[in-house]
Structure formats: C-alpha cells, structure tokens
C-alpha cells in the first residue's frame, strides 16, 4: 500500500515539475521500486554527488587562474581542497550567480557532502605526458604549477593550466567514471543488482543508482530534451535570456542539482549547435530510455534481455560521448592552426589565444584516451602529433619533465610543420571517430574554393 502511494506521489510530482513537457521527456523523478524500503523518500533518482563534482571542477578551474606569477602555497592548498579535500563548508567558486541568472546553491555541501575529484580520477598511466604519471598525479602536478603561474598561464613553456586541468578532468573523472565504471562494470548481472539497495538504507536499487550516477556525470539538466542546443549552451554561459529555460520549477533560481549545464553536456551542445550533430539529445534520450527499463523492472533482478538493452543504450551513450570529445579535439586543433598562422604572420598578440586553445586541445586529447576502450595506435599518433607542449613562436617546445618536475625543452623544426600536425589531428579525428560538426575545419577552405569554381558534373566539350 505504501509502495502504491509512493508511486502515485512520484507520478504527481513528475507531472507538477514539468507541466510543459510530455511525461518521459524528463530524467526523473522516478518512483521507489526497491522492495522492503521503509523510508520516507518518494523519488529514487539521485546524482547529487556527480553534480557536486562538476561544481568542484568548475571551481578548481576558476582557482587555477588566480595565481600572480609567484609561488603561492595558500592558493595551492585551496585548489587541493577542491580537488582532493572533503572539507565541509567549501564555498562554490564557480558557477555562481551572474546578473539575473541566480544560482540556488552557494556551498558545495548544499549539493552533496564529503565529495572530491581525486577519488574518482582515472588511475591509469597518462601516456600523453612524460613520466607515466597517473591521472591524479598529473592533475596535482598541474595544480602545483598553476599556483605559481601568472593567471594560470606559463608563457615561457606554453601551458594554460586552467584549461589543461579542466579539460582533462572532464575525461579523467566524468567520461571515465560514466563509461568505464557505471555504464560498464556496474551494468553486469553480478554487480549492483536491481533487487538490492545500492547501499544499506538507500531508497534506490543498485542498477537505478548506477545509471543515475552515469547520467549525473554527463551534466545536463533533467529536462534538457526539451531544450535547443543553443539554449543549453546559453545556460552553461549563464546568459540572462537562458534563465527562463533553465529554471523549470519557476522559483527564480537555477538549481545546480537538476537545472544546470556542466562540461560534457556543454561541449555536446557546442557541436550540436552546428546542426550537423545530435549528440546531446541522443545521449540524454538513451539515459532516459535506460532508466525507464530499470524502473519498469520494479525492484526485481534485471533479465538478460533487459541487461542487453541497457548495454546497447550504454554503447550509444559511450559512442556519442566519445564523439563529443573528438569534436572538441578537432575544433581546438583548428583553433591552434589559425593562431599559429597569425603568429607566423607576426601577430604575436595571437600567442595568448594559442596557449589557451592548446591547453584545451591537449586536455581533450588526453580525455579521449581515458575511456573504456584502449585507443591503441590512434592514441600514440595523437600524442605524437600534439606533443608534450606547444611549439612556441621561438620554436622551443617542451619535450620532457625531469625528476624534479622541471620542463625539458628542445627546438622544433618549424611552425609550419606543427601546423601540419594540427591538420593531421583533424584528419585523425575524422578518420577514426567520424566527427561531423567539424568546427574550425581547416580543409573546409578547400571545399569552399572548389564550390566557387563549380563545373563538377557538366558534360561539355571545348
């Protein structure tokens, strides 16, 4: 009887929360299906831990740009609190309210307590950087460097730490946890079964929560299926015009737990804005469809057929998420190409943009390599083309890191050659991942020129 009441309340809550949306378009609330649950909760959806980690990531990125060029232990300590600490009362540094775009939460604990990023960072060796550092070691190395860099940028060696840290965490935490843990290992029959609570006393089953956590790492609003990619993009940018689209419950504030856009969903929207891809919608729909399958099991063990369907949906999510990262690599390789061209033409003001774009390129390229699949030769080629550091205007390039953590540099042959590498990176993304949005496509220039010439299929004599 209690169970029936719970289902009814949850259904009414769903209807109330999304009056303008069709039922099923929103990720939750979903009823409690766990047998013998005796608590007072009516909604089995929970992914606040993942949202807290997105907030820790955003805040860490912001802090990484606060240095003044001198060693700063206090800043380093603060950054580490957001990366590996669990200290209560951490004030959110980003995202915060901006004009009329008001954000509901001000403290990380208001979302979820005792969360950090280090515990969820990919532990394998990062082959795209020297010394076989593990994911957490690399991030801590960058945090150390960022604390003593001016606004997070090392102009001598070419590193933009806020971008490197941010883009790598998007892969090493969010992408890795979602596709290599929750949608992979935890979607097997043995692990986190659906007829048992995820943990003792929890209002959700093992499978329900595993799926929810993966969804949380994607970082999209629960109602994002009703939103245009341009709107999703604007929400992430905290544009005043986007408030009405984000604030689905109409309380005048954006609830970070259910209404905000974070990194992975933002980059999917960036590609989808071109109209040539539909990554965000495909991923969100697959998450919702999967959650419906789990809910429909009504607290029973999932059948092989149901598990099979979930694995298919997980594969769709993984494939589209991977493509989103590949699109970002493609885009920033194109940005670097343009910046290098400007530098080659003597416009040294392009250097700032170049370092920022290179940081994004390197961070995303490393992110792409920490998924479930081993990219093998593609990863080796990608790392070789991008290198350990960017080729600078004076042709110097970091090629190694010594045992004391100092950069070792050597001389690159030319900027033109490195520009060629950027083009090869774009081609690699095209050949291996079939990117379609192709933002900043440098070969598009040729296509435009050929279009202008015309004369393709004419059968004319001279």
């Amino acid at each position: 009887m209690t169970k029936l009441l719970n289902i009814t309340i949850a259904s009414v809550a769903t209807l109330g929360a999304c009056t303008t949306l069709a039922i099923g378009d929103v990720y939750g609330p979903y009823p409690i299906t766990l047998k013998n649950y005796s608590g007072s909760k009516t909604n089995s959806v929970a992914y606040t831990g993942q949202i807290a980690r997105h907030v820790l990531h955003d805040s860490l990125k912001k802090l990484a740009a606060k240095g003044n060029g001198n060693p700063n232990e206090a800043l380093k300590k603060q950054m580490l609190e957001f990366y590996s600490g669990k200290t209560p009362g951490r004030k959110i540094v980003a995202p915060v309210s901006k004009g009329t775009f008001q954000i509901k939460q001000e403290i990380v604990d208001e979302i979820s307590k005792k969360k950090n990023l280090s515990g969820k960072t990919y532990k394998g060796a990062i082959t795209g950087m020297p010394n076989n550092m593990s994911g957490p070691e690399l991030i801590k190395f960058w945090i150390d460097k960022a604390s003593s860099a001016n606004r997070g940028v090392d102009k001598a060696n070419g590193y933009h730490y806020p971008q490197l840290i941010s883009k790598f965490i998007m892969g090493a935490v969010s992408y890795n946890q979602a596709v290599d843990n929750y949608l992979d290992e935890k979607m097997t029959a043995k692990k986190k079964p659906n007829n048992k609570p995820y943990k003792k006393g929890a209002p959700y089953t093992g499978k329900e929560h595993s799926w929810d956590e993966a969804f949380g790492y994607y970082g999209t609003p629960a109602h994002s299926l009703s939103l245009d990619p341009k709107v999703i993009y604007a929400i992430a940018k905290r544009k005043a015009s986007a408030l009405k689209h984000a604030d689905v419950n109409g309380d005048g504030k954006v609830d970070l737990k259910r209404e905000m856009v974070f990194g992975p969903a933002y980059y999917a929207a960036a590609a989808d804005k071109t109209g040539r891809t539909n990554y965000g919608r495909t991923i969100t729909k697959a998450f919702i469809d999967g959650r419906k399958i789990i809910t429909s099991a009504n607290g029973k063990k999932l059948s092989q057929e149901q598990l099979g369907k979930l694995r298919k949906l997980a594969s769709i999510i993984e494939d589209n998420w991977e493509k989103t990262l590949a699109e970002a690599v493609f885009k920033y390789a194109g940005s670097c190409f343009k910046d290098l061209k400007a530098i080659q033409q003597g416009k040294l003001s392009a250097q700032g943009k170049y370092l920022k774009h290179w940081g994004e390129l390197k961070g995303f390229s490393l992110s792409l390599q920490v998924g479930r699949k081993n990219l093998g030769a593609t990863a080796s080629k990608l790392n070789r083309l991008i290198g350990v550091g960017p080729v600078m205007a004076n042709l110097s390039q970091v090629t190694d890191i010594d045992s004391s953590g100092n950069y070792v540099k050597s001389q690159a042959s030319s900027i033109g050659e490195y520009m060629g590498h950027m083009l090869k990176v774009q081609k690699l993304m095209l050949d291996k991942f079939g990117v379609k949005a192709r933002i900043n496509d440098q070969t598009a220039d040729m296509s435009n020129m050929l279009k202008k010439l015309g004369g393709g299929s004419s059968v004319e004599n001279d």
Partner: protein
Amino acid sequence: MDLYIWLTQTLLPELCESFVDPRKRVSIIYLCTAILLVFIWGLTSGLSLKSGLRAVTSGLLSKKILLSRSSMGDYKLLIINRILFSLKAPFFLSKTAFTAFLFFYLNEVFPTQNSILSATPVIFVTVAYTVILFLVDDLSRFITHYALHRFEVLWAFHKIHHSAETLSPLTVFRTHPVEGIIFGLRSLLAQGIVVACFVFFFGSQVDLVSVLGVNVLIFIFNATGANLRHSHVPISYGRSLEIFFLSPVQHQLHHSKSPKHYNCNFGVVLAVWDKALGTHSLDYSQEKLQFGLGDQKCQYNNTLFKMYVYPFCEVSGILKRRTVEFFNKLSKGENSAFQ
C-alpha cells in the same frame, strides 16, 4: 510521384542552371554578348543595320542551323547526358576528397613548408591564384583535347562531337558520356592540384579575381565570343592576336571536314600550347568551311542510340585488331627466332 519530384526538383533546375549560371559558357549573358558581337561584326562587314541583322539570323539563329538534324542530335545528347549525370554515379571521385588527399600528401612530403607563404600580401595571392588557375585549366583542356584526337580509343568517343555538321553554341553539349567522365577527371585534377597547393603554401582560403563569381579571365573569354567557336560566323581576331589567342574561326577550322585542316587548334583560349606542339593553324581563306567527319565513315546519323553505342563497338573493334596485331607480332618474332 518520385519521378515527378526528380523531374521538377533535379533535372529541370539542372538543365536551366546551364543557361543562368555565369560559370557556364552557354549562360544567357554570354549568349547575348555573342549575338551582340555577331551583329557588330555584320554591321562592320556590310556597313548597314541590315547586314548586322543578317549576320545574326543566318550565322547564329538560322532555322537551318538550329533545327538541323545535327543540332537535334546536340539537344538529345544534352538532355540524356544531363539525366545520366544527375544520377551521380557512385564511381565519381569527389573533388573535395581528392584535393584533401593532395593537401595532406603535401604535408607529408614538405612538412616544414606548410603555410610558408602566409605572409604574402593578399592582392598578390589573389592575382596569382586567378592567373595560375586559368593557365592550368587551359593547359589541361589542351592536353585532354589533344589526347582525344591522338589516341584511337579516345577518338572513337570524341568523334561524336566532330560529327556535328552544323555548329551552334549548344554543340558543346554534343558529347559522349565517356568524354564527360574524362572532362570531369580533368577538372578534378586541374582544380584539385591548384587549390591544394595554394591552401598548403598560403595557409588558408584564397579568393579569385572574379566577375559574377567567375574567374575574370574566363569571364572575358566567355563574354567575347566563346560561344561563336561553335557557330557559322567566321569571326577572326586578326593574325597578330591569333598568335596568342584562339579565335572562333580557328576553332571552326578545327571542326572543318577538309583533311587539310585535321588535327589543328586544339587549344581553348590560349594559342601558345598549339604553337609549342606545332598544331597551331591560321590556314583559313575566304572559303566557306564545311563541318563534320569528312571522308571518315559516319554511322551515327544523329541517332541517339547509335551515338551512344557505336563508339563502344568501335573501341571493341580497335581492341580486337590490336590484340590480333600483338599476337601476330609475337608469333613472327618466335618464327624469326627459330629461323
């Protein structure tokens, strides 16, 4: 229903496109300038308005020409070729894919030269691109045309074009589909090479000096009587200019059925290629030229089926003959070795 949509949304727009797109030689703009040129030519020859009009009506817009059996063959080929080519055969290599391939190949071969000329002033790059594209395009057309005459197998297909006994601007469409494929490959190679090299060395998109979106040099060529190459109006530029540029009458000479005019003036705009190969000819007098295949046997009779199929029969005959000749030579060689 699908057929109706294809007819109205694909075939008809594509057919009309040839006559409105300024990149096409038979665009209405160039047809109008051709009429104007013929009128002025007639006017200056006969010194009267009547003679100007007569030149237009007899040399260009005559019923005898436009409704002749030969011209009817041109129209049939135009329509059927357009249908065939609008189906976009999957074996056609994409121009963009080929250009991208070349571009990346250049990156492999000259890794340090990428964008090496990117600091070159834009005006210089634009002019260089316009001129080089024009030169490469004109040279590649010359080479292709020369090969179509030089090689027996290719001539079997190009003969269809030369079987025209009356010439009108639409005779450019009197083309066998195999030739169409050859022309497509030529365009792919010429444009692909130039575009890939420019983007590689100059680092980004390069613009053309253009009029109405057309290379200014091609525009000048088309606007100054390119359509009269296939006409009965013997306009000459004068011998001193014809050493550099091929005039309409020089191309008409190329179409002459008289054996003394065979294999001359293969070029399109520039005469320099013919000069270099010794095929340049100014050998025209006041004699009225007759067009067609002359003493060569013409079996097509402007019948569509025959125009499409006979070249294949001819090629098969050539191949058979060549095979027999090859084995004959081989056996003779063996016999002489035993002697």
